[in-house]
Every structure is written in C-alpha cells, then in structure tokens.
C-alpha cells in the first residue's frame, strides 16, 4: 500500500523497490514503498531510574502521555522538535538511541513552567527536562550546555559571596563560552546608555568593580553549601554510574 504521509517517517526507515510484482500486480517504484520492519532490542533499562534519581526527575513515572506539556510548551511553539511528551515516552521505554537524536536541544527548556501548570499528573515536566539535560551531560553524551555554564558561573558567585553582581556574571559567562563580549547588540545597548548618562554609568560600573556586593559573615554558609554541593554531585554521579567529576 502506498504511504501517503511519507513526511512523517524518517527517510532511512522507508524502502522502495525499483521493480516488484506482487500477486501479478506490478508495484514497482513508489507503489511499493514500505516502512522497514524493526525490532528493538537495545533498550536501556536503567535510563528512567537514572533520570528519576537526578533533581527534578523524581515524578517521571507518573506520566500518562496526555501531551498537555508539549501543548503548553513555550519552546515547542518556536521549535516543534522540542517535545517533552515524546522524550518522557522514550525515557520511560528506555529508547536511548531515539532520545539521543534530540540531545542538543533538550537543554533549551526555558523553565517557564507552563508544562507544570498544565500537567494533570504532577510530573513536573520542567524538572524532568532539567534532569534529562543533566543526565546527558553526566553520561558524556553532550558537552556542558551554555545554560549549564551560566548556571555554574552564577551559582558559584552566589555560594562564594552570598550575592551576585550581574556585570561580573555576564563577563565571566562570555569568557567561559568563548564568545566575544562585544556583541553588536550589547555594544548598541551600552552605547545608548553611556551616551545618555556618561558620568552616572561610568560611576556605577566603577563602583561595582571596586565594591563587590556581598553578604556579611557568609563564610560558614559558604562552607556548609559547598559541603552539600559535593555531596549531591557525588550522589548524582553515583546515580548515573558515572566516574569522576567534570
């Protein structure tokens, strides 16, 4: 039988016979388009448990596949390939190879929590996306995403001083991700401001560099948080069976 919706099937899964006769009927060419049979044997039985063990992934087992998350998703509206319902399906079945096709976009979840709002099963798909992105990195399937770089830079400063100073976060983030700080649009923004209020902005920028905002008597909190971070990092690595740190 000819397949009408070929666009829905990946090219490599379609077979077309140049010359084929079935029961005396010539079905050569596109009349003999078939979907290749496939049997999956390489299920990753541990994938769901590993992702569920990472922060945010706890409720993945509750999913009923209703699709409310994808329907509500901010990123899906921009990129239809971004499909939380489908990824949760793959993870629950252990279809790792299929999941890895999308490994480079899963980190793009913007944490708007529209999925969490819509989910009738309290899966917290936003958390599952974060746990999955985290899992991909811990397993070495993807490098650290720009988002992870930003989170680590930001959190590092908070843990160190109790507060953040935005221009420092931005500068360090661009350095970590090896991007030029002089993005044309950033330059346009800063020029606009500096042109309007040169003295005010120069003073404030200077102040921020000299007088770094910090919480007083933070040393004990810093130590306590760092100890906890080491503990969870070790637990996360153990949960996914990964060795060593980043």
């Amino acid at each position, binding site marked *: 039988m000819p397949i009408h919706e070929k666009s829905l099937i990946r090219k490599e899964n379609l077979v077309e016979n140049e010359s084929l006769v079935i029961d005396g009927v010539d079905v050569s060419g596109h009349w003999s388009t078939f979907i290749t049979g496939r049997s999956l044997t390489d299920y990753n039985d541990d994938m769901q448990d590993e992702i569920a063990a990472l*922060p*945010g992934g706890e409720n993945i087992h509750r999913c009923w596949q209703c699709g409310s998350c994808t329907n509500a998703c*901010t*990123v899906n509206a*921009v990129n239809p390939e971004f499909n939380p319902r489908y990824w949760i399906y793959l993870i629950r079945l252990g279809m790792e190879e299929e999941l890895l096709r999308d490994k480079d976009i899963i980190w*793009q979840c*913007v*944490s*708007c*929590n*529209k999925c*969490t*709002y819509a989910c009738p099963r309290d899966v*917290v798909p936003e958390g599952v996306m*974060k746990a999955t992105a*985290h899992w991909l990195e811990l397993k070495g399937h993807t490098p650290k*995403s*720009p*988002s*992870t*770089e*930003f*989170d*680590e830079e*930001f*959190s590092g400063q*908070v*843990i160190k001083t*109790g*507060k*953040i*100073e*935005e*221009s420092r976060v*931005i500068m360090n*983030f*661009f350095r970590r*991700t090896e991007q030029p700080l002089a993005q044309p*649009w950033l330059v*346009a*923004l800063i020029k*606009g*401001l500096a042109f*309007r*209020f040169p003295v*005010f902005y120069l003073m404030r920028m200077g102040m*921020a560099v000299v007088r770094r*905002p910090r*919480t*007083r*008597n933070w040393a*004990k*909190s810093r*130590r*306590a*948080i760092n*100890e*906890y*971070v080491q503990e*969870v990092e070790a637990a996360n690595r153990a949960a996914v069976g990964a060795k060593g740190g980043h």
Partner: protein
Amino acid sequence: MDGSNDLKKVAYYPGCALEGTGHAYNRSTKAVGKSLGLELVELENWNCCGAMEVKNVDPKIQTYLSARNLSIAEDMGFDKVMAPCNGCYHNLKKAEYDLANDPKSVEVNERISAKAGHDAYKPGKVETIHALDWIKKAVGEEELAKRVQNSLKGIKVANYYGCMYTRPRHIFPEKDKGPGTESTAKPHFMDDILAAAGAENVEFPLKTACCGGAHSLSDSDMSTKLVLNIIETAEACGAEVIATECPTCHTGLEMHQVRAEKVLGRKTNVKILYFTQLLGMALGLSASKVGVQENLSDSRAFLKEKGLG
C-alpha cells in the same frame, strides 16, 4: 492576607537584580511607597534567593538561600516580606511551600542552617508578598484613584506579568480563591492598579507568556524570538507601553527589543516601563524620581509628549 494596617510597614527584600540592572524598579518602588505613606524596612544582610540558576545545581540550595532571608524577616519581627522581583517572590514562596510539604527539603535546610550557625526557618512564620499585593492590599484602587495627580489617561498599556508570578500554581495557595484574589490564568492586580491611575489597559493575551529570561544570554536567539512575539503582540493589541513587574522580564524585553532590531531587522516602538514608574508619575513624581533615565528603553520623549514626568 489580613487587614491593610499590617501592610503599611513590611520587610523589604530587593534582591540582587534591583541593585543592578533593575535599579529603576528599586528606586520607583521605594518612591511609590513613600508617596503612599507606606514603610519598607530592608532585610538586614540579605543574600541572593538563588534566582533561576541555583536550582539547576540543586533545588535544595535554593531552598536554603531563600529560607535564610525568611529567617531574617522573622528575626526582625516581621510576618510579611515584600519582594518586587518575580524571581525572589517565587523562590521565597517555593521555599515556604517545600519546607511545609517536603521532609527532605526540611532536613537539608536544617543541616545547612546549623552548619552556617543560625536557626533554620520554620514554615508559617513569614508570608511573602509581591509589590502588586502590597500596593493593592495596603492602599487599594479607591484610595489610589484619589491620590492621582497626573492621570495616565489616554496611555494604552499592555500589562505583562511573566512566568514566575503565577507558576507553578501550587506555591501560591492564596491565588485563584475567587473575587478579590489574584488569578493564575489571567492575573489582573497590575491592570487594577494602573486602571486606578487612569491608564487604558488593552486586552493582551500574552500576560503570562515567557520572555525566555532564564536563557537570555545562554540561548539569545530563542529569547529574542519570544520577546519579539510578546512585543509585536502588544503593539498589535494597540499598546504604547508594556508595564512590567519583574526586573528579569523588564531587562529581557528591553535587551531583546534592541537585539531583534540589530539581528533580525525587526524594529518595534512600544515603550517598556515598570508599573511602579507609571504609578509613581501618576502620583505626581518626576520621571527622574522613578528612575526613567535608568531604563535601557528610552521613553523620555514619549512621556513628555503624554505630559508625564
């Protein structure tokens, strides 16, 4: 939330953004409070709430960071803390919820607090409110309307609330409780306040859409598309101004409005102002008193034309 009297003087948690890019929000919030006879007492030696980043390292660090601020409010003798930033407001609310419902969060918070040398915050002691709750409940529309000196009449406003003011809904138990309470699906507190100040609010379907603030720099193209959609929709709805109540949303809209023009060649004209700036000017404060000059989006000519500031 009970009576308006105990809202006349509340603890104030500005947060990091209000000391940086969101300084205009800090300035205008304080100026509006002063003009309305409300008192804000800043938390002593506060720390970052964890914003949107720390939870991705581990959510319970964010719980500790936010709970420490709630502890400070309690120690200072307050049972209400006002946070104008959606991120701070959301995280303090989330800490309150998690400490009341998740034993593991309680355990981690107690452990870190003990090592840090202070008492662990216990839920139920301090209620976190947003600047919108504060103004609406402490003053109310009727009183606001009486105090307006420069009506916002004829200014078409799209009220933009963003994500963290309403989602996820379970951390906001006081919302969706019928008339007079805030709605998570269609929030209206900012609309109510600005309408009392004379503004003409437009019907705007993207009140709680996402600006991509979490990835403003790490996935700029995505953020630009999301912001452009919000801005172009606001313009299509007839808005001249987008009123904001979150420093991350506000800066995101301003930055990506410029980026959309530079990178995608899509120029838009809608002005972006904090609701406290609009309200402050309606109450008779000058544009500089509410920090209009500190915004990235330059709305001075527009405001002059409208007879404000």
